[in-house]
């Protein structure tokens, strides 16, 4: 097919002619859109709806993704690529014990406290520090893991629960609990404190390894009126508070942080006592040399510690359930498909309306062809109109999208993440419980004190509009305009001037 070429401009007239041609193009375009304002608005609104929906969905998805990342960070520790935990049922010293704690007595009677069958009468205070339900790993495993190829650093941690019960001759107070995290000070940028922000005092130094010092979570400090310099009693030992810290909101952080050595020294295997946890950790935090090493290091650790649970961010993310997971699924599946559906519908409507407009303007285009306009120029005119309509739709769509995002932020329900407690997380309060009956009996299940299987974490999220989403909106607007213009242009190429001129409006 022959290429349509323009008559050559007169010598020396190219520049002004082109500029003049552009001004004519713009005049024609503006007036044509003005004449078909209603149709142009319908097309633009259709595109705006689709584009606005894409922005809302992508913003919601980004918000949920950020929330997931935030949850992962807060649970997992900034800089941590892999966590290693021992399963309570395999290889754990704790799994070999079945602890029991009973308090017998009543009003007017001398209390009798029985731990694992060993009983003691009289008023007493029980204050015991024991692991939060996970199994334990030997501290020496940390060094082995640190030597694996691709591992940059490895550090240990010990998540514990301090349970205090005061029993007098007349009553037994309900048990009080707080969580204690043993922190490995050899790698202070890895593990539970890596994402913490100090609000007062100072944090641990390497020399604190064997000191009776503690950092306290700000919420716990506020609730218990603790300040820097206060004492907190852990397993009957007074520990000095040297700093107050803030962890990410919604991360359910431990209440008290102590040096790992102190935690190991004070903790026992279970509420009834048992062996010391010196030389043990329950979590090993690993950072790899690069993100591409994660899978290889994971394989090596599994080979080294076959019974351990090895958790990576991706495996952890897949284990997060609850409304956060539902929201992610909703945004990922329904939202995406809904956006695509609306966009396709908007593009189709825009294309059909443009084709219809071109058909109605057949005689106009036929006339232009008759007076010497090449098809390419007419197509350019139609494409210009379509793209302009698309851009108006894009601008409206961005406005609609931002409004939609604001509404979503206003009405969005609070999300929660439900996380398996054996997933190697560093924080979290188990859904298990310690109960005290009317007679003051406290029963703790086998395998450790807190036998819950999941933990629920509130997640704060907000839809997040990114520049990429705005860029996508503009791109979609142009694509929508071009697509509808292309359909119209196809109609123009089919028009024979003679047929077009024969049309009756």
């Amino acid at each position, binding site marked *: 097919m022959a290429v349509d070429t323009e008559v050559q401009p007169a010598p020396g007239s190219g520049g002004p002619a082109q500029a*003049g041609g552009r001004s004519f193009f713009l005049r024609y375009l503006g007036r044509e859109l003005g004449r078909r304002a209603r149709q142009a608005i319908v097309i633009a609104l259709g595109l705006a709806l689709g584009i606005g929906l894409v922005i809302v969905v992508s913003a919601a998805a980004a918000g949920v993704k950020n929330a997931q990342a935030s949850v992962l960070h807060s649970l997992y520790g900034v800089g941590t690529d892999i966590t290693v935990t021992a399963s309570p049922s395999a290889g754990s010293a704790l799994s070999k014990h079945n602890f029991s704690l009973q308090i017998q007595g009543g009003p007017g009677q001398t209390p009798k406290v029985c731990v694992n069958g060993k009983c003691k009468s009289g008023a007493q205070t029980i204050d015991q520090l024991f692991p939060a339900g996970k199994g334990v790993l030997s501290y020496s495993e940390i060094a082995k893991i640190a030597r694996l190829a691709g591992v940059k650093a490895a550090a240990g941690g010990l998540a514990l629960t301090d349970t205090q019960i005061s029993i007098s001759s007349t009553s037994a107070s309900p048990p009080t609990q707080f969580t204690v995290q043993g922190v490995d000070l050899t790698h202070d940028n890895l593990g539970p404190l890596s994402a913490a922000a100090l609000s007062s005092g100072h944090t641990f130094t390497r020399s604190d390894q064997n000191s009776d010092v503690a950092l306290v979570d700000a919420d716990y400090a506020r609730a218990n009126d603790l300040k820097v310099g206060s004492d907190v009693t852990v397993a009957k030992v007074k520990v000095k508070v040297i700093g107050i810290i803030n962890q990410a909101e919604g991360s359910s952080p431990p209440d008290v942080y102590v040096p790992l050595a102190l935690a190991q020294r004070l903790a026992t295997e279970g509420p009834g006592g048992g062996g010391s946890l010196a030389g043990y950790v329950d979590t090993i935090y690993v950072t790899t040399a690069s993100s591409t090493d994660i899978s290889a290091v994971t394989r090596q650790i599994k080979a080294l510690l076959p019974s351990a649970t090895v958790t990576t961010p991706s495996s952890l993310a897949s284990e997060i359930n609850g409304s956060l997971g539902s929201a992610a699924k909703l945004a990922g599946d329904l939202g995406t498909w809904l956006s695509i559906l609306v966009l396709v519908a908007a593009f189709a409507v825009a294309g059909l309306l443009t084709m219809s407009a071109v058909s109605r303007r057949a005689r106009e285009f036929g006339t232009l062809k008759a007076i010497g306009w090449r098809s390419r120029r007419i197509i350019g005119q139609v494409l210009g109109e379509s793209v302009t309509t698309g851009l108006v739709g894009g601008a409206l769509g961005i406005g609609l999208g931002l409004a939609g995002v604001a509404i979503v932020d206003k009405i969005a329900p609070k999300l929660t993440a439900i996380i398996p407690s054996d997933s190697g997380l560093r924080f979290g309060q188990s859904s298990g419980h310690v109960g005290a009956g009317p007679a003051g009996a406290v029963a703790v299940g086998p395998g450790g004190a807190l036998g819950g299987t999941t933990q629920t974490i509130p997640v704060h999220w907000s839809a997040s509009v990114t520049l990429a989403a705005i860029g996508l909106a503009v791109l979609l607007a142009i694509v929508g305009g071009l697509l509808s213009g292309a359909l119209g242009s196809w109609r123009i190429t089919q028009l024979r001037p003679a047929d077009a001129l024969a049309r009756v409006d």
Partner: protein
Amino acid sequence: MYTLTNVTRLYQKGRHTVPAVRDVNLQIPDGDWLAVQGRTGHGKSTLLQLLGGLDHPTSGTVEMDGRDLGRLREAEVTRLRAASIGFVFQTFNLVPTLTAADNVEAALIPLGIAWAERRRRTADALDSVGLSDRARHLPSELSGGQQQRVAIARALVKEPTVLLADEPTGNLDEDTREDIMALLEKLWRQHGLTMVLVTHETSVAGRALHVADMSKGRLTIRSSAPPPPRFPASSEPRPSGRTGSETSYPA
């Protein structure tokens, strides 16, 4: 000069083949004015479209200045139309969103003429049809006669050698028809155009140098001498090559 040799144009309508133009042989010298008269549907407009390169014959050749329009590439025909052929239509065919001046200027866009020159020529063209004061008006703000004047200005602004007019007075009342025909006649004289005018009105056809009848696709030359009143001796000199004796019209 146009030379049509054995030109036939057939249309397919369903299962039937309809001949719009049948075996037409015709020569139109430069500067001539030929009126083609006939009833609706007998092939007048098709003949005009063949002359303008808007349509191609099913068989035969349409030559313009020795160039077979059927053999030219589409781009070349477009270029020819842009530079040398002006069209005037029965329904004016103005772009409704453009002003009178913009409609006229549209004919200069394909020629790549500088903006200032376009504006000047547009103003001159509108002036020549007596519509300088309507340059900023939209077609909907003009009467039928004024719209046709704009269309004539659009056809002539590029200074073509050929003007093809398809029922230019078909949508006008009697007074306006007279005005438009007088204007066309004046411009034909001034610009030395070759003009082919299709009409079904005898009074309009009667103004031409030559009149041909089109019936069922066949062309027959009816007259080759202009009636005296339309070319008063006192008026401007007739452009060369406009006498009937120089024109050959094999029927």
